[in-house]
């Protein structure tokens, strides 16, 4: 369970959002809304510990500094994949796929249509295909908190369905998810509109 | 004892706040600039005209009154930058970052002054404008460090990370400067054992020492005055659209 109190973040002394407070309970799906540049991505980065100089407090199961970090799955705009390595080589060393056996990953990759690209260099893949590599880790992982930044962007219809289905499974199985998306058809349990918190 | 400690703490916090510093410095500025110019005048005139001429080098050694103060001021400004960097990193005091930004160009110009006066001095004794001797070389390296700081600062658009980057560089530079100075001295003894101590001021006779000390004091006062002006300019630049700054401007004119 994640509790956020009085969270505000300033970028070169201009406040993106000011004293934002909400709780993220298990099984909750929060969608962050707001105009571009209202700080949606920044909030996700703050929640997962990339950006540290925020005001306010974030406590995870009321252990204040999120000491053990391996309970968080972060999907950012950038894919963090090495271009000169193949898909399997990337997955071998990516921390997001540790603890998941290779067979499960291959299964998910096949489901997303990447079965015969396993040994091609990532640099030869399209943006959508690169995204699917990370999503295959997402499909197979079981963390308690997921922070997804535009999970469904440049995906084909079929893969979008698979991912949204998986999001629901994870919510039902008790994990909590905060995500940003311009998709309309995802029914979130709670919406947070960051424009309300802008200064 | 803790009364004194809390006084220092209070002063420290006040030092960090821009409005307080801005108003205090406007009072200090006129007096200290007059004082600085006066002492500078006395020192230079005394050194150039009234002190004895040197046995072996004749009149040209008088440049010592410009070179030695400039070199020592350049060095101490850099270590002041390093302490400001340390204060910024450890206690996150905004004023420290601003201090580095304001003082770096001043330090660089005094280092340049030291280099030019050193070259002018070297010319008659060595017959060339530039001498790769220990003192001048480490002053050149000091200039490179200053330029690195100024360059690094200007390459950041976000003020906060610029201050942090510059503080790290200032501290790392300060740690490495003594090592560089030692290795340059050592390198110099390799090529020119017990080289000319042309630039050391310790071994000069007393009639020459007093004007030199006055000049050194004058240079430090000058740096203090330039520093005040530069910091005020930087505060103005950063706090232009803040309320307290507008109030002061309206109140003054």
């Amino acid at each position: 369970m994640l509790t956020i109190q009085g969270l505000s973040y300033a970028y070169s002394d201009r406040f993106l959002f000011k004293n934002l407070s909400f709780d993220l309970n298990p099984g909750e799906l929060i969608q962050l809304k707001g105009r571009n540049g209202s700080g949606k991505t920044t909030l996700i980065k703050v929640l997962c510990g990339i950006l540290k100089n925020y005001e306010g407090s974030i406590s995870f199961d009321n252990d204040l500094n999120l000491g053990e970090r391996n309970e968080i799955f972060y999907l950012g705009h950038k894919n963090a994949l090495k271009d000169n390595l193949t898909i399997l080589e990337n997955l071998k060393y990516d921390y997001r796929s540790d603890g998941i056996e290779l067979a499960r990953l291959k299964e998910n990759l096949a489901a997303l249509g990447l079965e015969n690209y396993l040994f091609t260099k990532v640099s030869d893949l399209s943006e959508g295909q690169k995204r699917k590599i990370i999503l295959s880790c997402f499909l197979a992982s079981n963390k308690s908190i997921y922070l997804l930044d535009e999970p469904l962007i440049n995906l084909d219809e079929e893969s979008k369905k698979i991912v949204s289905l998986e999001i629901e499974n994870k919510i039902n199985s008790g994990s909590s998810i905060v995500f940003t998306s311009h998709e309309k058809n995802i029914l979130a349990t709670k919406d947070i509109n960051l424009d309300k918190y802008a200064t | 004892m803790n009364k004194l400690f809390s006084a220092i703490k209070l002063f420290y916090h006040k030092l960090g706040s821009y409005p307080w510093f801005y108003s205090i410095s406007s009072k200090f500025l006129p007096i200290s600039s007059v004082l600085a110019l006066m002492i500078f005048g006395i020192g230079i005139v005394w050194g150039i005209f009234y002190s004895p001429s040197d046995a072996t080098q004749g009149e040209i050694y008088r440049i010592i009154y410009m070179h030695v103060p400039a070199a020592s001021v350049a060095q101490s400004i850099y270590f002041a930058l390093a302490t400001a960097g340390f204060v910024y990193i450890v206690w996150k005091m905004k004023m420290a970052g601003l201090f580095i930004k304001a003082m770096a160009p001043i330090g660089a110009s005094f280092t340049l002054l030291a280099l030019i006066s050193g070259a002018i001095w070297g010319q008659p004794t060595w017959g060339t404008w530039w001498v790769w001797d220990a003192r001048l070389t480490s002053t050149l390296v000091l200039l490179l460090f200053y330029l690195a700081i100024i360059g690094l600062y200007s390459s950041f658009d976000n003020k906060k990370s610029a201050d942090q980057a510059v503080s790290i560089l200032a501290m790392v530079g300060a740690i490495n400067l003594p090592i560089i100075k030692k290795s340059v001295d050592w390198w110099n003894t390799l090529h020119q054992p017990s080289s000319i101590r042309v630039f050391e001021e310790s071994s000069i006779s007393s009639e020459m020492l007093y004007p030199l000390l006055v000049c050194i004091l004058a240079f430090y006062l000058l740096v203090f005055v330039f520093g005040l002006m530069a910091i005020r300019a930087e505060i103005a630049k950063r706090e232009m659209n803040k309320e307290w700054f507008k109030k002061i401007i309206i109140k003054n004119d």
Partner: protein
Amino acid sequence: MIFLKSFFSREVLIYSKKSSNVISPVIFFLICIAFFPLAVSNDPNELSKLAPGLIWICILLAGMLSIQTIFKEDYDDGSLDLFYVRGFSMLEVVLVKIFVNWIFTALPLILLSCSMVFLLYFPVDKLFNLIGSLFLGTLIISFFGALAGALSLGKNSILASAIMLPLSLPVLILGSSASTYSNENITFFILLLSALLFFSVPIISLACVGAIRLHYE
């Protein structure tokens, strides 16, 4: 500790797959060395007098090329974000990255400088000095280069060299004079160079951690 092992093999894999990392410093080093006889003079005893300094300068410049982009790729593609999310201690990340970069870029250059005995008439009896001092010197320089790269992440690289080169001055002085003096003085230089290494490793790597952190403001 498990993180370190897998991160180390990840870095080794990345470097082994990207051959340009290894080849470009080597090419730069050879071209840089070849210029001197053409530009300065090709008579043997003049060149052998200049050889130690030339080798050191060219290795410093060649090393500079690759070391400054050490964090750039991970910063651009988002891997650094993941390290922060996962809570890895950035100090280990920095140390491993610098060490792997050193293995793949500096070691080939050091082996190559043995060929300078022919190209630059470098006195053979002093080769041991040269290799020893290069071994330590390039490691120290990699730390300064990494700091310069971290400070100017995502900015133009001229600045990075302006930060790295003044810092590497003591190494250049110690290293080049180590290669000019006869073998029995070598222990003096090796001791000093390793003292410099042990002194700058902790300070500079911590500065690197701070420097990377500031790009996440």
